[in-house]
């Protein structure tokens, strides 16, 4: 069964100013329970805001460092869910349910990516 990571991207600046409705956490709790009970949720977490983050960049043989918040990016990764499901369609269905729990006026993106399984040694990867 393939594994998918759903990278949740949010607009930090707008979310900071728009409080969710009081039932939001309850809906999210119920959904997480449902996903877990379906036996598909392997791991999930929300991330601390990018004001506490650091980007390290390797380029031209040099490391450069940028401290957050990353205001130049509209959406940043705010959390993730690691799912093991039968196929991509099932992963998308769970991502859809996850998004629908959020307040209507929010803007949230779930980027659903399949985990590349198999050999970790790059020389063993099949040729594209």
């Amino acid at each position, binding site marked *: 069964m393939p594994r998918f990571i759903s990278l949740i991207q949010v607009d930090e600046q707008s979310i900071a100013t728009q409080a969710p409705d009081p039932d939001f956490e309850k809906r999210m709790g119920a959904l997480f329970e449902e996903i877990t009970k*379906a036996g598909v949720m392997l791991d999930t977490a929300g991330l601390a805001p990018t004001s506490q983050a650091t980007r390290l960049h390797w380029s031209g043989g040099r490391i450069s460092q940028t401290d957050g918040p990353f205001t130049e990016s509209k959406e940043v990764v705010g959390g993730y869910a690691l799912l093991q499901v039968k196929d991509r369609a099932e992963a*998308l*269905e769970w991502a859809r349910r996850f998004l629908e729990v959020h307040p209507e006026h929010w803007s949230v993106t779930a980027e659903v990516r399949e985990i590349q399984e198999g050999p970790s040694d790059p020389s063993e990867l099949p040729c594209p």
Partner: protein
Amino acid sequence: MAVTGTDAVGTAGTGSTTAETVETVFRIESARIVAAVARVVRDVGLAEEIAQDALVAALEQWPESGVPERPGAWLTAVAKRRAIDLVRRGETYARKLAEVGRTLEDTPPPPEPADPEDIDDDLLRLVFTACHPVLSAEARTALTLRLLGGLTTQEIARAFLTSEATVAQRIVRAKRKLAAAGVPFEVPYGEDRAGRLSSVLEVVYLVFNEGYSATAGDDLCRPALCEDALRLARVLEGLMPGEPEVHGLAALLELQASRIPARTGHGGEPVLLADQNRARWNRMLILRGLEALRRAGEGPYGPYCLQAAIAACHARAVRYEDTDWAVIAALYGRLAALTPSPVVELNRAVAVSMAEGPGAGLELVDALTDEPALRGYHLLPSVRGDLLERLGRGEEARAEFERAATLTHNERERELLLGRARRS
């Protein structure tokens, strides 16, 4: 970053048809739909047919009307309505009417939307019914994978290297047998419960083992089957959080599964625990396994918790040399006391040989050589060969490895054993 993001959404988001959405939603929801309907009609076979009818209805209606806001609830509602209609009309199911009709008149139809607790209860009833001891282990396994694992008959057939017709027939017979035996659609409580629970856990354990150490065929391991079993174990954990052995089983399977990437070499040959590259063990599964074992509580441990505790000892050892064999031997001792079996005793012998030396292990193994249950079991000569080799008795070791090679049904394992015979 932005470009890749747009691209990914563009290809995936708009590509799926309504029919695909229907099928995906149905697959996710089917166990719960069958469970909810079975509570009404009290027959899992009939419930599955009715759930299929709801699927057909969705395939007909959704392309026109659009996907409903809560597609799972829609499917469940349609299926339940149909179930109640069928039972009331009693056209085709007159027999059912006699059983259920009165109950339906006395009590109003179940409320909708259902409370999550009720759904869990229905699912649990389905679990216990599909794994009822009136069914053979094979029938229980096929029915559980079909009703709870969401596997198609074809997928089950492929997993067990048998024909689709055989599996289909097995499932039909199992449903008939449940109906004929009048198995109630209930969660057992009281005296019955422990035995019934172990019947459930056994099914999941058997599915996992069939994948983990394939008893037939060319592959040593069929990970897809292990994953199906793991998913079932995780579902059971959610349904029965108060049962330590359910957590124990989940822990055991997570921990065993963590070693799958290291258990076979590049050519598909088996790699023994001692030789495994532990960097290839799946850390996340190990952590999940240890966490599940923690949820099982302080004990006293049942057989699955004990086996999980043994697997946890291996998982915690960064190198093979770090393995705490004395603890493992003691855990096998407790397991042997709880569920005495020659196979457990053989495993204990291995652990004792590592903790106290090959001589101590051989003494235990030699006590097992006349055990009828182990006659034809390749691991007995295989272990004995290993102990003899460590004691420097190469001639005898070779004979044991050769004997083990003739007994195994797995090609890969046979090659490994013959290789050891040549080297001893």
